[in-house]
């Protein structure tokens, strides 16, 4: 890859743009009664909302609570 200020300053997208947190919070709220998701969802709120980490977490959540469409609609952007 050609060297540029992009390559020098680019950092793993660990701190998301604003809105990620809103989305995750909303996803949590929409499935607030789902105890299974709550245990999975807490890490979303405490971790720096990293797309790569989220991808892993949300994929895991998806496998576990596959019927909750709202959660996955809300998290769609990260998959």
């Amino acid at each position, binding site marked *: 890859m050609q060297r540029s200020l992009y390559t020098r300053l680019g*950092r793993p997208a660990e701190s998301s743009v*604003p809105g990620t947190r809103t989305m995750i919070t909303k996803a949590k709220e929409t499935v607030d009664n789902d105890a299974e998701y709550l245990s999975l969802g807490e890490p979303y709120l405490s971790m720096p909302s990293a797309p790569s980490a989220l991808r892993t977490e949300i994929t895991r959540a998806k496998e576990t609570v596959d019927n909750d469409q709202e959660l996955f609609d809300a998290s769609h952007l990260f998959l």
Partner: protein
Amino acid sequence: MTGEWARRNPVIVGERQDLHVEAVVEACRHRGFDVSLVDVSTLEDRSFTYLDGEWLIGGEAFSEDQPVRRGWIRRLAPPTWRTGTQAETHEAVVRTSWLALLAGWLSSPSVQWLTAFRRLLAAENKIVQLDAVRRLGMRVPHTVLTNDLNELIDSFDEVIVKPLGPSQFLASPEDMRVVYATRMSTADMASDELASAPFLLQERIAACRHVRVVTVGGSAWVAGLDAADLPDDWRVHVPAHSSFVPAECEEVVQAAVRAATALDVHFSSQDWIVDTAGESVFLDLNPAGQWLFLPDELAQSVTGALADWLTGSR
């Protein structure tokens, strides 16, 4: 809702999974209007016909002869739509063809867009923004774009470096990178770095407060964030995303509305700072930016204002 009113239901360019779209759709529904959602990916999935200036998309007619509908352009495509396409390949020309189709429809007079498509594209450019705001007599950071390192060193010892292009890129298929506004010593820069991709190089202004302003037409809502102990780019610090508080700042309200008016954008999400002397400084403007991370009352006001305009209530 039937007949003529049904044809006046608003249009949003975006996808339902986008919470900003969802919020505005819900607000329109509360006002008695359904919303048609269209973006380039839905165009692919629906029937469409263009015939001599008239459009039929998913069974909905868009024509100059019908009552004008109002619309808001949020996102042309979902973030994952046809990503990773290599230039000049078949996939690339297919992708471009779909975008050209969408652009043609967005440019037709059958929908009155909150911000016209061509204005939205022009206003995305940070040089255009800075020039427009500077011409209004408002303060913007001293800004250099150059591929000449000596020229830069002559002007600055230290700069805030910001992408002129997109802030995110794939370094490899699984490695998304983001570039934030970053403070750098000009002595630490290399000529080839500066020459290979143009970046905004700006004076660093010591911030007392970060300010996010959202404008809808002639109205604006302001939220502030104490800059103490924050990095130059507050987005790096995740807790800052939820730490904005509503702010009263008539000077910034008026300035932000003037900036949006100068750029002919009727929605904008703007970043300003208030420096240690209390002066407001324009940083940049996003004509399709976010607001839902701001305090609830403020966010709901913005959502409501958009829905009011789309449904003709204002």
